[in-house]
């Protein structure tokens, strides 16, 4: 699966260390623990899912299904919610990321962003459906759209934040 896709974005980059990957995931959990309240809760983007996509695409050897599951469990505990909801959605996200990885890698950054938006939307909707099945109140319409939208908007900034050195083979921004 890996070998046949053109890899313009990933061929010439310096891999970050495992510690840095873990630290970034930890930071995303800290972001979750910030004192969100009221409206903030409805629009808080899911940074953990975003990083899961990012590392799943650029460091597939470091991101396994087990790590996605564990992150989901920690996220559930952090949100004082039923254990397993995010574990389920992140496991599903992991499968989607691995499935679409070659395709996403073949795109420039803005087109990648659309794919990331789709992945985040699917994750969010799966979470909403599971909550609905478990009998929780139906969220208002903005919940289904705004969080993934804000998350996807953060995608173009991730390489600058997460990569050790600027990518030598960075593709030019599509006009």
């Amino acid at each position, binding site marked *: 699966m890996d070998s046949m896709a053109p890899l313009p974005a990933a061929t010439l980059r310096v891999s970050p260390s495992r510690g840095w990957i873990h630290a970034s995931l930890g930071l995303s959990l800290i972001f979750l623990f910030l004192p969100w309240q009221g409206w903030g809760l409805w629009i808080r983007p899911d940074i953990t899912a975003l990083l899961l996509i990012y590392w799943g695409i650029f460091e597939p050897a470091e991101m*396994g299904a087990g790590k996605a599951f564990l992150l989901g469990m920690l996220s559930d505990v952090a949100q004082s919610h039923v*254990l397993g909801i995010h574990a389920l959605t992140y496991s599903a996200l992991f499968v989607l990321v691995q499935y679409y990885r070659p395709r996403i890698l073949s795109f420039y950054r803005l087109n990648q962003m659309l794919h990331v938006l789709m992945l985040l939307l699917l994750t969010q909707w799966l979470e909403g459906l599971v909550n609905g099945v478990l009998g929780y*109140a139906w969220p208002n319409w903005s919940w289904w759209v705004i969080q993934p939208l804000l998350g996807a908007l953060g995608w173009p900034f991730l390489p600058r934040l997460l990569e050790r050195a600027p990518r030598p083979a960075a593709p030019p921004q599509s006009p």
Partner: protein
Amino acid sequence: MSPLKSHPSDLFSRPSPLWLRSGIYGLLALTCILLDHHYHRLERVHQILRIWTLPLQELARVPLWTGRELGRHLTTLERLQAENDALRHQLLGQAALVQQATLLTRDLTRLHTLMQLGNSPRFTGQVHRLIGSARNPFVQKVLLEGGENQGLQAGSPVLTDQGLMGQITRVYPDESEVTLISNRDLTIPVEIERTGLRTLAMGTGHQGELSLPYVPSQTDVRVGDILLTSGIDGLYPRGLTVATLTSVTRHPSSAFVEITARVNAGTDTYPDVLVMAPNTAFQNLPTLDNQRHSPVHEPTHKKP
């Protein structure tokens, strides 16, 4: 045709590790949801994962804490004095009420003894600080400083100065989880202050909103009526303010009135709350059928 081409899969036959592993983890997650949501068997896992996330949680509190400490240092003398004066006035205003209440309690105890009714339960409480609300819009819960090590127990009612806020439903070593009364799982026996009508108030799952589903359509209820706990369940003491009715809709086709109420106790205004000791008399009641009853796992009450 070469044999290779006729059975191409034989050469590399192996299960797809991606789908297999993810499927196993997906099933594991579904099992977790089932065990936690329906059977409440994952309390230990909750505790362990919570301890793992504790350092992250502490780190996330640093900016908030710094802000609060800075704010405390920068508070001016005038503001403190004004606040102090306001508090003293409030205290004076309440002093008469408190004295009256002491007298009333004494009279009531005497009457109870005369009528051989047994002592009315005394409720004590301790003040704790709120850490924050649950980080999920689906969940009506808040977190409290203080847990098992501070002697808190699941099943304790939690109040603010505005009224009943919720109930402790899960206790960690140094913090506890309070389920707000607007949570779908909670049902509170209430009475309407103006008429004394007893009924049930249920959480709707929306922030600060209750519904009263079992009020017959001929009943005298109005918007603005105040709900108090009726104390029938023995868990919440009688007479705590719960909510104010915000809408009363009568449908000609329905035998019940559609009523929604707004919870009086807000979670965002006051950092400190009162945790009352759980009523032990409630735990000595005979249980219905032979179910093991533990307040940790069942925030809902038996319907009276």
